[in-house]
């Protein structure tokens, strides 16, 4: 027998269930308990960059919106810098901008909304430039292990075309499932997205 490696095994995932709001967004469950709550508002008054709204739905295999889904997003600031010590890139860090938020879908419409800033292009550890994007993590009843995907921006055509992750997606027709569409509404910049869990337009999900 060779020496044992003795690695531990990752704890198994379990669904977040229909009552995920109790733990992660108690106000949506219908009560007030914590002094400080996490939210879908990532931008602070001092945040640099363009203020944007990310707005979309997660659709099931019949095309119906999930009305009990929870999304978290993780993103760099406008300078392309993540607020984390493992990001050693040169962009200026903004201590106040955590770059993370969570949102539950509306119980009636299924709409999910974040208010944030548009992230800058990322410089990876190898020096590659990556197109601006937001990392998305999705949990809900019926989702056994959290789903990872990304949102890119429709007005970043040149950098999207050169992005090393988007270029991994084959067939290329599926790349559009990762792109949020820019529009302006009542003076706000809105990027709209649809995440399809199944079907011909199924969103690209990553094994990260």
């Amino acid at each position, binding site marked *: 027998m060779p020496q044992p490696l*003795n*690695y*531990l*095994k*990752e*704890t*198994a*995932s*379990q*669904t*977040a269930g229909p*009552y*995920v709001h*109790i*733990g*992660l967004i*108690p106000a949506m*469950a*219908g*009560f007030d308990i*914590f*002094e*400080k709550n*996490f939210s879908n508002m990532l931008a602070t008054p001092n945040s640099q960059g363009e203020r944007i709204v990310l707005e979309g739905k997660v659709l099931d*295999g*019949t095309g119906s919106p999930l009305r*009990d889904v929870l999304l978290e997003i*993780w993103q*760099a600031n406008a300078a392309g810098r*993540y607020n*984390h*010590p*493992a990001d*050693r890139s040169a962009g200026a860090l903004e201590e106040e901008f955590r*770059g*993370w938020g969570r949102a539950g879908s509306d*119980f009636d419409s299924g709409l999910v909304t974040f208010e944030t800033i548009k992230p800058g292009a*990322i410089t990876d*550890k190898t020096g590659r430039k990556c197109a601006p*994007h937001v990392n998305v*993590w999705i*949990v*809900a009843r*019926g*989702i*056994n*292990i*959290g*789903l990872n995907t*990304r949102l890119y921006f429709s007005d970043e055509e040149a950098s999207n075309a050169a992005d090393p*992750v988007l270029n*991994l997606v084959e067939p290329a027709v599926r790349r559009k499932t990762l792109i949020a569409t820019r529009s302006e509404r009542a003076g706000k910049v809105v990027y709209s997205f649809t995440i399809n*869990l*199944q079907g011909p337009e*199924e969103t*690209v*999900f*990553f*094994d*990260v």
Partner: protein
Amino acid sequence: MNVQAPALQDPRLNRPEPFAPPHGDGGFFQRDRSMHPPAHAPGYKSSVLRSPRQALLSLENTVSEITGPVFGHNDLGPLDNDLIRNYAKDGDPVGERIIVHGRVLDETGRGVPNTLVEFWQANAGGRYRHKKDTYLAPIDPNFGGCGRALTDDTGYYYFRTVKPGPYPWRNYVNSWRPAHIHFSVFGSGFAQRLITQMYFEGDPLIPVCPILTTIPDKDALDRLVAPLDLNASTPFDSLAYRFDIVLRGQRSTYFENRTEGN
């Protein structure tokens, strides 16, 4: 002679670049999906329409995956890890008083320090304080059912609560969830993000639960079952259960001399 020449220059600067350890790129160990429930698990009916059918696209970790949100004590309130007190209105909640404690580790066995652990559960009668829960068991006026904690420098966390009750749910006509507590854990990078559920040693509903049995590996399932930990109980006050959580290991050395999370 013992007199050293003044160090005008760090002599290491003149050395060739040393061979780097083969695990320093900061990526996480590949996730072993045979330990996790598959997305499509027909015995858990809700998964049928909510499971992706295309293959996941394997992504070598970039800076987007090895970084993740950092939390601190400023994010929490003083009662956040005490579910017996954090929603109490006119007394303690009904139920068996328990302490739940353990460590958040990674696959190399190292504690994951300063990471956020969130937990939520039904009350002792199996009823959630949630506007969508209509089970006939009563709401407990003194129990909210959620809390959170930061792990310490060694990855240790603990909280106090009452033991949740089992409850029926619509899967088969007679499906019941074993008593469980939901856990959400972050780790140091967004690719470690995990939600799971903790079960209680000896619960006869464990082997017949359509959600728990989505896990294909018997040992992985057993690792979700917390043993009674009498040594950690408080005599004449609370029993204790021990629940360790393992997140993915990381091939990280290059920022090891900086404290993670600071």
